């Protein structure tokens, strides 16, 4: 007997709504949720490979306790009681000797993040961090500096846009189904697409205008666009007059940044910049400069992301159809969001965070996410205090934090490393204990509040029984908590209990999700009134070009542009990115996805390759100040001569993931751990590398 279950995918963090068909405790079919506008049944390749993850015999099948040296691959299978007791005993000793703050938990944000935050608060540690800063910490800070909202509190109405400008936002390979379809919809209706990237991607092949910009100089381009827009009075004057604080300061600041000046810096002809500015002005306010998904390229990242959002503001496209909007929550229509365990009362924590976010060292990055890339230095220097235990949950510091050897050196100093994981990731392979989690088709999950033009709530539902001896992370943490004497903070026995507790007071119950997989707080799109109703959260209530957030912390709103130097002869900037088949570092071992893209290659410009004696497909050695490795070359005209490119997420070292083991190399091996010290993102595109035949 077939059964239909509405749920959410979790092959990547986008969590698209899906419809699943189950029969005899097996998954027969997955498609995008046909009831969700903009999804309409569509499913990306990673979602299409969900069934093969369910069946994959290379998943972690039982709790594992390490028996040999770390990373040696010597394990014993354990029962849940053995594994949890082992972790709890070690943690008790560590907390007793070094305090609760000596425990750090890092994860990729997900529906049960409130459970892991609760776990840490209850043991007296301020040290929860998410992957977010590593991806887009500076985008978050940039948006708060202008609007008082984080980037994730803002959305993009691409389907109604008339002109979309993307700075390396490779939306047709780094796919989020709904936004990707929105762009296609806009193009169908005649919208223009401008794509700016040192490398030709699939998105570039679909664009009307493609600029192979000199790497690291997008900010110069944007200052020149502002120069033209202000000089030619192309901006939305009533909107700017009403909403902007600091327009005159901007006007004075961009005065010297002419298109001719920017042509020297970026390699883009001045006249083309002027043409773009005029084209956009014609279609304003239904135009948008996308602020990026990942925003972690250079050490001035916050100023690039601010410049993008300033351009949107000049076009009047903030809170506009076809532009950006502020996401509306249930409160906007008198509704209530699901409760979270973090709403409980906890003992006061005196210690500062391990990454010093919220102190004068890092006043601006978002303490809700922290700065994961600061973990190795904090451990190695015992600054601000000794860190002794690390729990990672759906997060791999070895492949996601730049400079793998520094991270490894730091992890060696820890007394305990625990992974809550589905696959034999690199960090799972290195851990003392692996606590295997059920994959998304095997578990119900906490509600997902989907704020937007129409606030909604989605629910992931268990479809089949777990294939192996795995549990939900929220159950694992609860059971660990019980052993540490903090069980009272987890008032549930099953995930279903927890969901019921969370839904209390929302007016919705489990059954409400069964028909379509989601509930809606309203059926109308909510746009605030652009003349008078935009509820900005900055101190001035305006869009702050001159930012009180920055200036009060001692940073400039408009620091003078610094020339970004070309690499020395025979050196390149290493840039990284995504393809449609893989999610970050987590899917490379999936049988179907690995079949299509099984390793990464090093893109290198044809003329540079000829000089270096490198032919297409040959093995090359790529080396940075941190490490070197061998990888196959992809020789092409379609990449800027100053950069080489590789896909992120390859070169796995967890041997039991046999398909991905040692295939290609990891960008984190080569990257230096340097950051935008104001905004919080790492500067992933500044590392210099050499390339030679292997």
């Amino acid at each position, binding site marked *: 007997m077939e059964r239909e279950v509405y749920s959410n995918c979790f092959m990547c963090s986008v969590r698209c709504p899906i419809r699943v068909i189950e029969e005899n405790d097996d998954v027969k079919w997955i498609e995008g949720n046909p009831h969700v506008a903009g999804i309409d049944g569509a499913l990306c390749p990673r*979602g299409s490979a969900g069934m093969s993850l369910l069946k994959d015999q290379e998943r972690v099948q039982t709790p594992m306790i390490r028996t040999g040296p770390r990373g040696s691959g010597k394990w014993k299978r354990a029962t849940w009681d053995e594994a949890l007791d082992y972790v709890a005993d070690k943690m008790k000793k560590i907390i007793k000797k070094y305090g609760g703050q000596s425990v750090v938990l890092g994860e990729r944000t997900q529906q049960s993040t409130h459970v892991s935050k609760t776990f840490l608060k209850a043991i007296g540690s301020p040290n929860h961090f998410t992957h977010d800063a590593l991806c887009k910490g500076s985008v978050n800070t940039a948006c708060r500096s202008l609007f008082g909202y984080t980037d994730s509190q803002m959305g993009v109405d691409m389907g109604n846009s008339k002109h979309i400008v993307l700075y390396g936002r490779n939306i047709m390979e780094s796919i989020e189904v709904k936004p990707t379809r929105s762009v296609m919809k806009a193009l169908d209706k005649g919208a223009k697409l401008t794509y700016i990237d040192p490398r030709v991607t699939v998105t570039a092949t679909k664009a009307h205008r493609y600029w192979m910009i000199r790497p690291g100089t997008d900010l110069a381009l944007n200052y020149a666009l502002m120069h033209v827009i202000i000089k030619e009075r192309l901006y939305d004057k009533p909107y700017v007059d009403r909403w902007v604080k600091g327009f005159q300061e901007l006007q004075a600041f961009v005065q010297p940044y002419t298109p001719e000046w920017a042509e020297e810096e970026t390699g883009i002809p001045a006249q083309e910049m002027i043409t773009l500015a005029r084209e956009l002005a014609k279609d304003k306010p239904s135009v948008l400069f996308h602020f990026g998904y990942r925003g972690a390229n250079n050490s001035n990242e916050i100023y690039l992301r601010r410049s993008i959002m300033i351009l949107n503001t000049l076009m009047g496209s903030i809170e506009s159809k076809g532009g950006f909007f502020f996401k509306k929550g249930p409160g906007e229509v008198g509704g209530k969001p699901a409760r979270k365990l973090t709403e409980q009362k906890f003992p006061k924590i005196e210690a500062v965070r391990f990454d010093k976010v919220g102190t004068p060292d890092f006043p601006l990055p978002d303490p809700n996410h922290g700065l994961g890339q600061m973990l190795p230095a904090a451990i190695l220097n015992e600054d601000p205090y000794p860190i002794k235990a690390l729990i990672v949950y759906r997060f791999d510091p070895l492949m996601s934090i730049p400079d793998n050897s520094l991270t490894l050196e730091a992890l060696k100093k820890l007394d305990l490393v625990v992974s809550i994981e589905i696959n034999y990731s690199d960090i799972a392979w290195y851990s003392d204990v692996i606590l295997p989690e059920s994959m998304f088709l095997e578990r119900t999950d906490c509600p997902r509040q989907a704020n937007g033009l129409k606030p909604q709530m989605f629910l992931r539902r268990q479809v089949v029984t777990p294939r192996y001896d795995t549990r939900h992370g929220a159950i694992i943490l609860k059971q660990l908590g019980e052993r540490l004497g903090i069980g009272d903070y987890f008032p549930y026995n099953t995930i279903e209990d927890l969901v019921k507790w969370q839904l209390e007071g929302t007016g919705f119950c489990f059954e409400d999700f069964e028909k379509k997989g989601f509930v809606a707080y309203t059926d109308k799109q909510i746009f605030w009134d652009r003349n008078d109703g935009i509820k900005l959260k900055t101190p001035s209530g305006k869009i702050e070009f001159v930012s009180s957030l920055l200036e009060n912390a001692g940073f400039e709103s408009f620091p003078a542009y610094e020339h970004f130097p070309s690499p020395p002869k025979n050196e390149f900037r290493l840039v990284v990115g995504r393809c449609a088949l893989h999610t970050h570092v987590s899917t490379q071992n999936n049988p179907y996805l690995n079949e299509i893209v099984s390793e990464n290659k090093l893109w290198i410009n044809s003329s540079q390759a000829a000089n270096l004696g490198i032919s297409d497909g040959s093995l090359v050695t790529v080396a940075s100040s941190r490490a070197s490795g061998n990888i196959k070359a992809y020789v092409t005209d379609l990449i800027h001569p100053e950069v080489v490119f590789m896909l992120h997420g390859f070169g796995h070292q967890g041997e039991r993931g046999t398909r991905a083991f040692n295939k290609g190399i990891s960008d984190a091996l080569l990257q230096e751990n340097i950051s935008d010290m104001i905004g919080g993102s790492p500067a992933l595109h500044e590392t210099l590398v050499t390339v030679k035949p292997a």
Partner: protein
Amino acid sequence: MSKYYLFQDAKKCIGCHSCEVICKSNKNLPVGPKVCQILTIGPRLVDSVPKAAYIFMPCFHCEDPWCVAACPTGAMQKRAKDGIVFIDHDLCVGCKTCMSACPWGAPQWDPELGKAVKCDYCMDRVDRGLKPACVTICTTSCLHFGESNEIPAIRRERYAKAVAALD
């Protein structure tokens, strides 16, 4: 020719391979056979703009299929009611003659089954009033399936809009 037509609106295809992956998931195929496949040609510069083609290759379900004529056991068949070309695995002996006969490489080898496999337009789904797996989930909805004269005139409409230039 089957009475159906599977149309790929190449302008909307982003070469993501989701069609390939769902096809394998739906048919529970091992690593190896690609019953449908996206082939990327390019990218290269065309008038200084980068262009690429993402070509979708399922089975064409020919009117007079080479594979059916070549099959020595009668496993490869054309369905009488609608012309879908499919393999009856009870009769397939794994001789690979169909793979040699097809000019486009549509029949593939399933190493676990030891038999050929091919696109059958998901005829079990079609018989239930559904579309083939690839068409149902296509990320950008660039794949269309239906009776040959019922496919929307997407390219004509797009061209008409372009030449009308009412703006």
